[in-house]
């Protein structure tokens, strides 16, 4: 039997049946350049030194592994939170942008482009560009520019240009299309910092490896607290799947660890307003990758919906499509309503206001029970400051 490729793709970029690089020839030289360089750069001592230094001194790593006592008591199980919300800029996204900006510099690039949904990746990209003094253009769906306004201001404050994507559903998928088109038009001087484990090979692998630091730290921290490196469950929300890839990474090939992925169900699976890719999608091609995606019978990509801009995406990364197909991971979907309630609950039991994306992960207690001695590690992927307006309106907190 072949060992399944959970962690790393094969040389053509495939995780099982998913992945690859289905890109127009116009992008081939750019993607090829990255593909030829990324493993060498990631493995070089010089890169590792710069990367680890910035993660420590600039991002604030390691982030704490926090035992959530009151939440654990409520659900009669052992709940740990990996506090990615405490990273500089407020989410895990910066682990990836720090790594990619260092890579872009080594490739001699003078201009950075990115797409963003919730704006967290856009802010994380704008931040590292400011740090390095490199020009930055961020594409963001016009709908997301409205619902994540604080992050738009942050990007502008950091000196980035924010360009609205006005096609399609005007959300993350469309912002990604625009970023790819920009890259086609600027093939030599520009590096595209993609924000999740999506896109053509080698991006899914590159981003997963840059986020892997999350689970590397968890192993060590859990050992200090529990005397074991191995949790029973690791749990994360999945938009494209980068925070999930990060917290799963070290555990993917250990069958003792149960992997749980939480998708955004929006208003409900059958309402036509959902972003639960594994429940509504099938294999196809999106943004240069063969993966599970929501589409009609003709292969036209369906416009997704979620209250959370970062999960409002009609696909998932090929690594996750493979985890789903091979049944290595358990996929659960939760509605807007349950996610919002879970966000409020985490705020009021632990004093941590999560991003709405992150809140989806904490809504699994409605769907799933755990034993009292099981260890759960949640990726608390981001903080909720950017979502205060949405939370406030939803719960009518101000009258």
């Amino acid at each position, binding site marked *: 039997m072949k060992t399944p490729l959970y962690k790393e793709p094969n040389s*053509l970029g495939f995780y099982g049946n998913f992945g*690859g*690089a*289905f*890109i*127009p*020839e*116009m992008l*081939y*030289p750019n993607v090829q350049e990255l593909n030829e360089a990324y493993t060498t750069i990631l493995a070089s001592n010089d890169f590792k030194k710069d990367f680890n230094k910035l993660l420590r001194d600039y991002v604030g790593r390691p982030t704490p592994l926090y035992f959530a006592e009151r939440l654990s008591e409520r659900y009669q199980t052992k709940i740990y939170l990996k506090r990615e919300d405490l990273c500089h800029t407020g989410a895990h996204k910066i682990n990836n942008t720090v790594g990619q900006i260092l890579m872009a510099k080594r490739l001699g690039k003078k201009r950075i482009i990115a797409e963003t949904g919730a704006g967290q990746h856009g802010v994380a990209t704008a931040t590292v560009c400011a740090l390095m003094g490199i020009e930055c253009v961020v594409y963001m769906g016009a709908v997301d520019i409205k619902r994540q306004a604080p992050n738009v201001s942050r990007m502008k404050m950091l000196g980035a240009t924010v360009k609205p994507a006005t*096609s*399609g559903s005007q959300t993350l*998928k469309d912002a990604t*299309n625009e970023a*790819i*088109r920009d890259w*086609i*038009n*600027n*093939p*030599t001087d520009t590096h595209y910092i993609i924000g999740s484990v999506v896109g053509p090979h080698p991006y899914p692998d590159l981003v997963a490896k840059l986020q892997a630091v999350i689970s590397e730290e968890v192993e060590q921290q859990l050992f200090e607290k529990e005397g074991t490196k191995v949790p029973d469950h690791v749990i994360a929300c999945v938009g494209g799947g980068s925070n999930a890839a990060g917290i799963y990474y070290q555990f993917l090939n250990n069958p003792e660890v149960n992997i749980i992925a939480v998708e955004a169900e929006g208003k409900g699976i059958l309402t036509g307003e959902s972003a639960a890719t594994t429940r509504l999608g099938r294999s*196809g*091609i*999106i*943004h*240069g990758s063969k993966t599970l995606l929501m*589409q009609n*019978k*003709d*292969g*036209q*990509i369906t416009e997704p919906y979620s209250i959370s801009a970062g999960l409002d995406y009609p696909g998932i990364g090929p690594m996750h499509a493979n985890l789903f197909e091979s049944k290595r991971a358990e996929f659960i979907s939760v509605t807007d309503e349950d996610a919002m309630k879970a966000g409020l609950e985490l705020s009021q039991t632990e004093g941590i206001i999560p991003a709405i994306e992150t809140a989806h992960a904490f809504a699994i207690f409605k769907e799933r029970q755990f034993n009292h001695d099981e260890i759960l590690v949640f990726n608390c992927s981001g903080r909720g400051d950017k979502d205060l307006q949405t939370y406030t309106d939803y719960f009518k907190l101000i009258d």
Partner: protein
Amino acid sequence: MQNRIHQRLQQPEKIVSIYFTAGYPKRDDTLEVIQELVNNGVDMIEVGLPYSDPLADGPTIQQSSTQALKNGMSSQLLFEQLKDLRQITSVPVIVMGYFNAMLQYGVKAFCESCEKCGIDGIIMPDLPIDIYQAEYQSIFEQHQLSFISLITPQTSDERIKQLDEASNSFIYMVSSASTTGSQAGFGQTELDYFKRIHDMRLKNKLIVGFGIKDQTSFDQAAQYTSGCIIGSAYIKHITEHGLRQTKPFIKSLKEQ
């Protein structure tokens, strides 16, 4: 394999090839646009199968695609619209689209439907050559379909040779690093590129696309190649003037 593309490429006259989006402006205009193009002496036609997320296309083709999808276009409908294609014309016709549409229809079924309608070739910008060769080449060939590869100014000589080897009609030279329609005339850089590829003496003929909008740009590109493909400029023209006004557009390109 010998199809209408090969036959036309053997003739010395430069090829004027027009791209348009199927189902645009109206759903059932597809065959009528083809009729107009043929009546006005166009040498080759690319029928664009509209896609929701056309990564390689600029605003003009994006908009025509969005409209065509709103009009109800689909792969199946395209093949129904084209079933009498060969009763009205013998010019080579190529389907251009994105690979996901083909994949969902079934690659084999898609090629069969193309052959039934008398289609001669397929351009799928996001179907990479290595996957084409490994999985689909024999199916294409079984149905007499040419697979047409794209190259750009950034494509390495080594890669061009590989693409040339895998192609069997013409190579689609993208005029500059760009999405469709985003060009403002050709300068020395583009001309040098056309000449450089011309001088490589590839086994396939060359046709230039992206950024051709008038006779000047046409002549510049055709000087080193077998002809040109015009897309966005034609779609803009029929959007503004209606498909009945195809004649003056083609005339402006063809008066030599």
